[in-house]
């Protein structure tokens, strides 16, 4: 523990030297404050479609203050001419709205409708008393369809709304608020990454590694200041937005760990500076989409619980959620953190860090280093079991990606992509060991393929067990994680796919991508027939 604190203090000193003199941190703080301020002002004004529509107005028209419209004051005659020659999209003459029949003009009319509705409601609300301006109340009652108990009880509605003042339940704003929590964490990770790069550059890592500290202590020590920073920003944001601080911490702590885990991988794998930039960008994009995409569907689809932001959205809406809902996103994230910490301790050695090789070879070496210290019969199935949370996350990302495809292709694409991913995960450990000459014989290859399939299946079913109660109405997710709970046939099937790949590559000398393609296609065909009810 002491060692960790020493390294953490050393990290703080490094940053202080970097941004030395006292003036620069102040400048950064000022800049950040300015940014915060401008984003606060921009919050309401920037929307989808800024500056897209030109509107001509004439006569008594309410003031149009919306970033989507550029307003032009014209005479009635002029307005009609400008509309004709497509210089403006809509012309408002007093209370009359004149448009063309083409798409652009019609889009503008719809946008105008959205704006005018709000503006008119404000006007009416200000000039008349509440009950006359809003004469309708809608009482919302809920009926439990599964329990045809008694009469509907009209006495006390669960909620009473005024239709024009109650916006439909879109979580956009709350998702944006929860994004603010993620921003500082990804920003600070630049320094976390740089810290390792610095050591590598100055060859100080060699010195550090020869000192009596373990790689684990080095990583923890370096992470500590940034983790503390991340947690304190979480507390601050929760405090500013009047959220429950403890709950916010509980929600965002696994997310923070997860993001740090991912950024720990960046300095371990980079070869040139440009690599770092590109890998970091890729990682940021993938994690952000993993976090945001599901949260958009809060309360619409139960699958949205895969993202912790969904919990945060619920927190801001003051809706309750239970332990299962909390563990569903938090467990995979924490698991990935632990796995990367383990990988980090194995990879933090000079030979691995300094080697300049193609990225794929580097990843192969990394897997080898993680497996090499224990017996293949233990490490291979463990590997297949432990990377399941990562597989799970990637499948969510595939799903995000697939929503762009034509409807007919979505299922096919996700099935094929997840088959490929599963096959990579199951076979890569054996292939890497074979390349280093650890496993050779047919017996070993088949034995390991079986164990790898077993490990994978156990992990998959455990995850399914956790999620099956949650993801009830998501057929695609069901297909991705295997429909049949019957264990024997899937086990044999997984074993066969993996053996095909391993044998094709190791014994028949197929290039790995080709062997992978063969195994994936067989897997895909199996999945499709399972879905059609063949097995």
């Amino acid at each position: 523990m002491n060692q960790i604190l020493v390294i953490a203090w050393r990290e703080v000193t490094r940053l202080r030297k970097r941004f030395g003199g006292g003036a620069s941190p102040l400048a950064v703080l000022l800049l950040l404050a300015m940014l915060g301020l401008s984003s606060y002002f921009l919050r309401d004004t920037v929307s989808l479609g800024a500056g897209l529509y030109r509107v001509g107005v004439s006569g008594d028209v309410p003031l149009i203050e919306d970033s989507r419209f550029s307003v032009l004051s014209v005479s009635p005659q002029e307005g009609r001419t400008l509309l004709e020659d497509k210089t403006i999209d809509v012309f408002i003459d007093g209370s009359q709205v004149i448009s063309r029949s083409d798409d652009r003009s019609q889009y503008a009319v719809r946008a105008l409708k959205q704006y005018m509705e709000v503006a008119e409601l404000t006007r009416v609300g200000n000039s008349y008393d509440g009950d006359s301006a809003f004469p309708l109340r809608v009482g919302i009652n809920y009926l439990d369809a599964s329990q045809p108990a008694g009469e509907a009880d009209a006495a006390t509605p669960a909620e009473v709304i005024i239709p024009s003042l109650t916006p439909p339940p879109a979580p956009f704003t709350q998702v944006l608020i929860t994004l603010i929590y993620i921003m500082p964490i990804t920003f600070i990770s630049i320094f976390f990454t740089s810290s390792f790069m610095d050591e590598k550059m100055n060859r100080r890592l060699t010195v550090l590694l020869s000192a009596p500290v373990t790689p684990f202590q080095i990583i923890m020590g370096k992470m500590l200041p940034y983790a503390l920073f991340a947690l304190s920003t979480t507390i601050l944001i929760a405090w500013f937005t009047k959220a429950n601080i403890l709950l916010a911490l509980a929600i965002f702590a696994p997310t923070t760990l997860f993001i740090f885990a991912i950024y720990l991988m960046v300095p371990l794998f980079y070869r040139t500076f440009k690599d770092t930039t590109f890998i970091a960008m890729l990682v940021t994009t993938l994690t952000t989409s993993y976090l945001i995409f599901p949260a958009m569907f809060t309360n619409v689809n139960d699958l949205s619980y895969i993202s912790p932001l969904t919990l945060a959205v619920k927190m801001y809406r003051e809706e309750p959620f239970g332990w299962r809902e909390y563990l569903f996103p938090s467990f995979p994230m924490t698991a990935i953190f632990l796995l990367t910490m383990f990988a980090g301790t194995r990879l933090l050695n000079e030979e691995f860090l300094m080697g300049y090789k193609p990225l794929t070879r580097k990843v192969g070496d990394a897997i080898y280093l993680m497996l090499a210290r224990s017996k293949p019969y233990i490490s291979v199935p463990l590997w297949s079991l432990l990377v399941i949370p990562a597989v799970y996350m990637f499948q969510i990302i595939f799903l995000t990606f697939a929503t762009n495809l034509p409807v007919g292709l979505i299922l096919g694409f996700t099935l094929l992509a997840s088959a490929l991913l599963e096959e990579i995960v199951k076979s890569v450990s054996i292939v890497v060991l074979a390349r280093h000459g650890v496993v050779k014989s047919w017996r070993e290859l088949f034995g390991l393929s079986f164990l790898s399939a077993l490990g994978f299946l156990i992990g998959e079913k455990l995850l399914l067990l956790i999620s099956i109660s949650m993801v009830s109405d998501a057929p695609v997710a069901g297909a991705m994680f295997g429909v049949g709970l019957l264990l024997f046939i899937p086990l044999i099937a997984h074993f066969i796919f993996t053996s095909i790949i391993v044998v094709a590559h190791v014994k028949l000398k197929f290039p790995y991508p080709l062997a992978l393609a063969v195994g994936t296609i067989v897997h895909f065909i199996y999945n499709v027939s399972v879905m059609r009810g063949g097995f």
Partner: protein
Amino acid sequence: MIFTVLAVVKKELASVIRDGTIVISILIQLFIASFSSGLLLGMLALYDPDTIMQFGGNIKIGMVSAAEDQLGPLMRERGLHVTEYATLADANAAFYRGEVLAIVDTPQDANGLTQVNLYLPTSETTSSLIRMVIQEPLKQYENTLRTEKGIELRYADLKGKPATSFEFVYSVLIPMLMFFPAFVAGSMAVDSITEEVENKTLQTLLSAPLTLNSMLAGKILASVILAFLQCIAWLSLLQLNGIVIQNTGWILLLALIIAGITSTSAALSAVLLKDRERSQFIYSLILLASAAISTLLNISPITAISRFAIGDAYTSGLNIIIFALFLGGLSLLLSKLSRRLLA
């Protein structure tokens, strides 16, 4: 001078292609583009009543019939399937038989207000969907009640076409695909300049017949060329997808200038700070700040690109001049300050 700059450009481009990192960058852009449009499609499918009605099929609502009924026709007009029942108990029974998804009770008078009771299933998914599609008829009904009280809501009869996709493509997707390569170009410039400093290869490089300024120019130019090629590729892809884009020449020119601005300011922060860590940090802060400032000052290049793309009548080459002038100023500043890199 020109040849030495070109030699640097060639070397930079060759290294980018050899590392294969540019592939990651293109993948990211593809992912962001498809991610955001996927998000939009998802949002549309789930939160836009028009789209729900278009794809959602028949949503069956039970209504308790009343003598003077205004709400029923409004809901039918929306495309909902309305079945009338004589009493609430009948409608209730139909709900439990699964014939209707929700029930609307007869509007009742309560102290001068009109109250309607709505019965929804407990399933959050279905009930929020119904609340979304039923919102518009309820608002129209509210308007009728207002008119009865002599309050007129103006502009209530506007229709138009759902504009979300249109707004997304022209104000988010196209600007994003045009500017993202520029942001990457800036990061690349920082990386390639600071790498020379931190690996201590700068002195060696400058012992070749190469001035500091032409070295910087070469590195900036290489990043800008990469960005420009990506922009051309994205524009052609978008057009192949059937998206109509006007003024492609002006759009590409503006994208080119923006890539120049980002790479030059990135080079400027690299020259002043000399290490990757601080330069990248300051560069990304500058990007965020200038995006905010340009929007505040109403000269945002994002808006300019959207307007070019839809063929706005008031947007012309004049809107680009300000960015070109800014780029000129930045380049001048960089050439004056470049000696700091050696200090």
